[in-house]
């Protein structure tokens, strides 16, 4: 019954993904085409979602913008998982050691910084741009995954099947890979979708304040920033990019919830 969120979530995410991929091959209009005569048009047959103050097609810009959002958020999640999961596994397998202590204190430290603030600081120091946005967002994914992995792995390490593997002479690296990782994969997948959606929001916020992807690359946050001065004149400029963000994030969250319910063996047995 809980699975009702899986389908709408998957559909929304799929639509955004397809739009992003399609934009490599085809968009209704070229996003670099400036057509001042047709500026600030409200939605009509030619421009389904209208045009901006340079006469660019909003729908086309949204499609290309999806590319930026997804790429930034996806790579940031990759950084978080790639670094955080091994750290968490290592910390759990040496519980209470200096390594564990070091990793956990490091995590606490990162949590002490308001994430958006540091993202702003990093992009400000190293210069605005998509790559720096990815790094800034990715850094904050590391402790999230490290902490999650460590917590889940710790409870697994006390389980008897891990003891059995130790009695069978397996070392901690092998146990982590063979027994721990497969058993926390679901958890990581669900957290991955959540961090993905947070990444989309963070990217939008950074490009809104001008620290994300730089023009001429369209991005949803930047479109919102541009629309702000024109909000009384052309509210649709503010509405559509916002809706794109909301629907993408909503889709990812629904997908995450659905996946969690679907993958939870307790719920599955009841079906």
């Amino acid at each position: 019954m809980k699975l009702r969120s899986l389908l709408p979530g998957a559909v929304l995410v799929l639509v955004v993904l397809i739009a992003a991929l399609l934009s490599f091959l085809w968009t209704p209009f070229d996003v670099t085409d400036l057509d001042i005569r047709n500026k600030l048009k409200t939605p009509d047959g030619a421009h389904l979602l209208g045009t901006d103050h340079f006469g660019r097609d909003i729908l086309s810009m949204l499609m290309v913008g999806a590319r930026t959002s997804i790429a930034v958020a996806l790579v940031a999640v990759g950084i978080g998982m790639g670094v955080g999961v091994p750290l968490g596994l290592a910390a759990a397998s040496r519980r209470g050691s200096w390594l564990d202590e070091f990793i956990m204190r490091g995590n606490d430290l990162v949590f002490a910084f308001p994430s958006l603030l540091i993202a702003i600081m990093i992009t400000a120091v190293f210069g605005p741009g998509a790559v720096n946005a990815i790094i800034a967002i990715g850094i904050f994914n590391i402790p999230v995954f490290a902490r999650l992995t460590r917590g889940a792995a710790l409870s697994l390490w006390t389980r008897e099947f891990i003891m059995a593997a130790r009695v069978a002479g397996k070392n901690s690296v092998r146990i982590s890979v063979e027994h721990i990782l497969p058993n926390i994969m679901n958890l990581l997948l669900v957290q991955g979708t959540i961090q993905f959606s947070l990444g989309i929001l963070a990217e939008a916020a950074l490009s809104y304040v001008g620290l994300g992807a730089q023009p001429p690359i369209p991005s949803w946050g930047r479109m919102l920033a541009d629309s702000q001065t024109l909000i009384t004149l052309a509210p649709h400029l503010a509405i559509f990019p916002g809706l794109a963000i909301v629907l993408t994030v909503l889709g990812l969250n629904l997908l995450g919830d659905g996946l969690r319910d679907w993958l939870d063996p307790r719920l599955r047995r009841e079906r």
Partner: protein
Amino acid sequence: MSVDSGPPLGDRQPASDHQRANSVLPNRVGALPLLALEKVSLSIHDTPILHDISLTLATGKTLGVIGESGSGKSMTALSIMQLLPRGAKLSGCIRFDNQTLTDLDEAALCELRGSDIGMIFQEPMTALNPVKNIGDQVSESIRLHRTVSRDEAQRLTRETLERVGLPNDEFPLARYPHELSGGQRQRVVIAIAIACKPKLLIADEPTTALDVTTQAGILDLLRSLQATEGLALMLITHDLAVVADMADDVVIMRQGRIVESGPRDCIFKAPQHEYTLDLFAASAFVPGKRQKQASGNVSAPLLSVQNLICEYPVSRRGLFKPATTFRAVDDVSLDIRAGESVGLVGESGCGKSTLTRALLGLMPIHSGVVQLNGESVSHAHRVSRRVRQQMQIVFQDPYGSFNPRHKVARLVAEPLHVLDSPPEGKVKNSRVVEVLESVGMSADDRDKYIHEFSGGQRQRIAIARALIINPALIILDEAVSALDVSVRAQVLELLSSLAAEKGLAYLFISHDLSVVRRVTDRVLVMKDGRIVERGDTETVFVAPQDEYTQALIGAAPRLEF
């Protein structure tokens, strides 16, 4: 209404009682029971749980409800409390004290619960709210049902706690649950249940989670409460021995049905139903003991432990206080010879688990020597292959001891990793089939996942996993404790025949005295990290020397009478 309240204990006539109990005669006029269930059936989300449960209980009597896990005994109790989970549908009629509980509305039921009916649960560690002190939790019950002043409620609370054996000078009301032991917490739970002097007390496995000495104390308390307060007691348990001591009448449940019921003496002396017979047979089960080989005693010990000490660092209580350590295993020495079965008995927290881990080389030892066939096991993470090849373990929890994501073949084959040249392909496969069959499983089970098996089957698979490398010693860590009695008997039988066949040595670790007595040649009794008594199993059980052993053996409920 199969169980009548029964005549007074004095004029008991077993044969006729028994017949009456199993007939469908109506209740005797005048002796209206306090509690009566009539044809109660229950389903949860359309899964049937209880079928036509009928029973009665009179004031001042004790009714024992016996069943293995999943028999529906707890759901029967929750039906009486009308505290059923979501999606529950109940039919039939539950009468209590001239009221029909099944007709009452929620407000009336709230008034009844805790005031006229009290209930005690199995798990004392989690049954109390961790963020409220015990005084508040007990007095809440009083203030809810009696209109008394705050001071009066405090006084009654202190009095109630005294009644359950928690004197106020030692256990002030401001204590929090985490500052109490399991037995003490269970006493607080009992205090909550009896604070308003209920007419009926339902105890659902009240001692299952407790150590045997603590268990005896709680049972004594329930018995004396029942005598002094004249309440009706419904005692739900899986343990025949607990009921044997206390119940006037007995109901035996299986798969949501009552299979047999009647006065205790009738059921215990002349059980009728096949399942009841099985239950008794399994409880009294003694596998054929092997003859000890005379030569085995002369040979060098297989496992030799000398003056073993294991310590844990205790997290510092304060910033300026020195770090301390807790000595979990204190100067333990023991020998196990090839083919010998040695029992290690102790209550929870006595250091059994730490000792096990140290023997397996899974934790660092502070001092002392552990040797297997002359080779040291002393260094954690650095245990040699040859040691690992000779020692295996079977754990208590048949659910937690397998990786749920691997198939049985992979699970059973895992220890092969430790061999010098692990078999591959067909050889490996035939080895897996061989051990599976030797524990009474079939070759087809290889391709199943562990959740497809019952608890008893899982323990068989766990034994297969231990056997696959032909170890000389298997450590059985509470290996049958989580199993129902009938399944337990089968697993013990299997262990016994495997030992005879393969000349295995066992270290049998358990809190359950009866199990240890049945399957071991020698026994060690452990308390606070030390071995307080050792000797031949029978000698220790018949003539225990140490005070603690005596208490332990004396406290265990027994079936014989």
